[in-house]
């Protein structure tokens, strides 16, 4: 057995608006939940990898490691990344190299503290040239949708079906979130609501097609495989982690209809883990928009390019809790996805891993994926920016 790093415990806060809680309070809550679950104390931590995208802007916290040190009374190495997946990737490398045995991986974001300016910040950091030309965080998704429908010649009745499929993605995510006590929006919505919001916006995508602005934190404890066995009966191993990078400027990219970085990251994560898309049952996608969820299913190799919308449409005619893609059950965004669970950028990846961890251990309660037995492999896809960075993590269980 190779030394695959394993997650032994996860914790998270509710996502949404946390007026009353400082960023420190949020990460403390997430860390304590994870600590309680596996009995790892702060003094057991050999390093911390924390992610946040905006704390220097939203909360004027620049040297985030410092407040984590104050919070934990630890003086171990700490590093800050922009996403939990990036933190996880770095932590996995460190554990595989043998540098550390037990590390904390966490993420935190408090975007609502800058509610009125956050869209400018998001867009400016995501793609400055486009921002200067007037782009909004939503525009690139709408352009990608237009590029997609043009490239695959989707028109007329098919276009109507595709638009319905996109609406169903949002509806599906909300229905999952209704069973998730941590989710930002624990209420159901209808296809009509999604479509009416598009009419109000006078565009192909509307309010319900996009992930919200959120606050929240998430944490997980990562150990080497030996240590994991001591701490829990059901560790969840990280079999593959990989990332890839694309241009900052979306118009300048070679492919406007897909996220090239996702394709590359999936190839490498798949190679590393020896897990193929066909083996994966639980999927956490980075649905910044409904379009991103649709396109990502193709980018990860679950189906042919230009066809995901059909699978989604058919699956949602009588939704049974999963997409049926190429005759396979694909449990997608069971926590509600970014759309309904919430999207506090720096913490979002932690919530995705939280969900996969729970699902693979069969501990997801009402949201549990309904296979004959617990699913074996899960895959999380996380972006930084508009697909500028793409991280794919493939998780699995060793226990029976």
């Amino acid at each position, binding site marked *: 057995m190779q030394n695959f790093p394993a997650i032994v415990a996860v914790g998270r806060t509710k996502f949404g608006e946390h007026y009353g809680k400082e960023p420190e309070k949020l990460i403390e809550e997430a860390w304590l939940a994870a600590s309680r679950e596996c009995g790892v104390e702060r003094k057991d931590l050999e390093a911390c990898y924390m992610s946040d995208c905006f704390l220097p802007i939203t909360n004027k916290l620049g040297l985030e490691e410092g407040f984590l040190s104050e919070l934990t009374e630890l003086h171990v190495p700490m590093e800050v990344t922009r996403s939990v997946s990036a933190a996880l990737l770095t932590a996995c490398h460190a554990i595989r190299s043998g540098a550390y045995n037990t590390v904390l991986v966490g993420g935190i974001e408090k975007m609502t503290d800058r509610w009125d300016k956050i869209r*400018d910040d998001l867009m400016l950091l995501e793609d400055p*040239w486009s921002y*200067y030309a007037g782009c*909004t965080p939503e525009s690139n998704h709408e352009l990608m949708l*237009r590029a997609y429908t043009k490239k695959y010649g989707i028109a007329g009745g098919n276009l109507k079906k595709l638009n319905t499929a996109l609406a169903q993605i949002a509806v599906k995510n909300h229905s999952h979130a209704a069973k998730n006590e941590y989710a930002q929006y624990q209420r159901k919505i209808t296809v009509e609501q999604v479509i009416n919001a598009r009419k109000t916006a006078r565009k192909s995508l509307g309010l319900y097609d996009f992930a919200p602005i959120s606050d929240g934190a998430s944490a997980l404890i990562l150990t080497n495989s030996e240590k994991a066995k001591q701490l829990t009966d059901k560790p969840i191993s990280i079999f593959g982690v990989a990332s890839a990078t694309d241009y900052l400027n979306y118009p300048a990219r070679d492919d406007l209809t897909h996220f090239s970085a996702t394709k590359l990251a999936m190839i490498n994560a798949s190679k590393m883990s020896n897990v193929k898309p066909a083996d994966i049952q639980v999927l956490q996608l980075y649905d910044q928009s409904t379009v991103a969820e649709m396109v990502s299913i193709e980018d990860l190799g679950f189906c042919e390019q230009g066809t995901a919308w059909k699978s989604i449409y058919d699956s949602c005619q009588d939704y049974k809790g999963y997409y049926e893609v190429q005759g396979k059950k694909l449990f997608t965004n069971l926590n509600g996805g970014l759309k309904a669970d919430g999207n506090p950028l720096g913490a979002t990846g932690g919530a995705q891993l939280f969900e996969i961890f729970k699902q693979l251990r069969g501990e997801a309660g009402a949201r549990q994926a309904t296979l004959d037995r617990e699913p074996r492999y899960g895959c999380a896809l996380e972006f930084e920016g508009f697909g500028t960075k793409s991280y794919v993590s493939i998780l699995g269980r060793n226990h029976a």
Partner: protein
Amino acid sequence: MSSEPIERRVSYLGDRLKASRCQICGKEFFEIRDYCSNCGRKSYMKMSSVDLFYEKGKLELCTLVTEPTNRFTKLETFVYGIVSFHEGKIRVPGRLTDQIIKPDETVDLAALEGREVIPRFRRRYSVNKADVVPTISLAFTLADEYYPHQEYTVSEQNKEYALPGIVGYGVYTSRFRIKEGNIERAVPFTDEDSVTAAVEAGKTALIHSGIDSANVGKVYVGSESNPYAVKPIASKVAQVLKLGEEEDDLQGVDAVDTEFACKAATSMLKDAAALVSYPGSGIKNAMVIGADNSQAAPRGCPGGELDLFVGYGGAAFVLGKRDVIAEIEGWYSVTSDTPDFWRRDGEPYPMHGGRFTGDPAYFKHVRKSVTKLMGRFSLKPHDVDYFVPHQPNPAFPVKVAKELGFRDEQYVCSLQVNKFGNTYSGCSPVGLAAVLDIARPEERILIASYGSGAGSDAYLLRTTNQLLDKRKRQKVTVKSLVENPFTQFVDYTTYRRLKAGM
């Protein structure tokens, strides 16, 4: 505080849309690059700059922005998309400008996709009043709209004339108008101001004259609506239009703004003419631009009476001694200290001396400069073919022309105040452009500007036969701007909002 390094980087690159091309494999990149991604290290120093400023692109994809980011809120609803150049080798983000999209209006995006667009030089977004005004050329207009695509072809300047004169000219105004009674007045779009008008007029003048922009040794910009109290418009014009020899991001040109109310630009024609004639100057061409987003307080407020006539636009003239289309035969200027119209430092709008602006101001000065100039050349009114009076409102120029003995057909064609509004520093220059658009060779034009404060410059011009040859190059004329089928009329509230800008 603005992020200065980013602002500077963007303003260098973004004011004039540029790209890079690998001289080895031909791959093109939107941003300035030192290396080609295909060729790697061997491409170092082998990347050439691709200038897209005079080119046209294609709108590949677009969407509607109904809830812009904070700095774009004054643009309200606009079309944003991806524009490609060189058959898709270069793709850039861009927004369509000069479009007012109503809150209930739906836009047929599919009909816009695939259309040709032209990069425009505009304000980028809103900033605080004390900040540097950021500009960009990632704003586009549809190529077949009021702004046709014009190629900039440099031609050799052959024939040298005895007298210096106008080598080429350009005129610019926006696509928007307010119509009240019989008067139409030009209204800038939200992202336009006197700087963008000066650049546009200068660009058209370069295209018309066919001179190499590197030959321009000096540029004068006359305006009374510069967004800055300190910082010239002319420096922006010089950089965007690449005037003078370019080396290390510097333009080998002298650029200066002038101020004398409405005659800030016309005053400099003689200086430009003198400069190109002075053998020691080494300057082949000089450019004079008059452009304004004419300021006026809202109606009912002090100074609000100006709001009835103010317009937007300007004209630019390239002066030189070769391939002249109108020689400058002579001039006469008068000045007196007459405060008929003024704006104190820090005040947003000018004040106006009421009936005092008539007889002791406009009429007295214009009458004097014209009669003195005609006296110097022993001319009678019938000896000149065209008379271009300064035109702050529809009544004054007619009255002064009649008083001086000119017949209707000599001056009516120059009167554009009914179509452009009073474009302040651009006012008599636009009138002159209107006459140059229709004049024939060997005709005499007399132009008299007026600037409050007060003074008047009268010039005597004689057209040459090159006027007709160069006319073929000119797609944007006063007539085309006035009769443009794409003109859009706006109501008073929209007019004030657009005029206030970003």
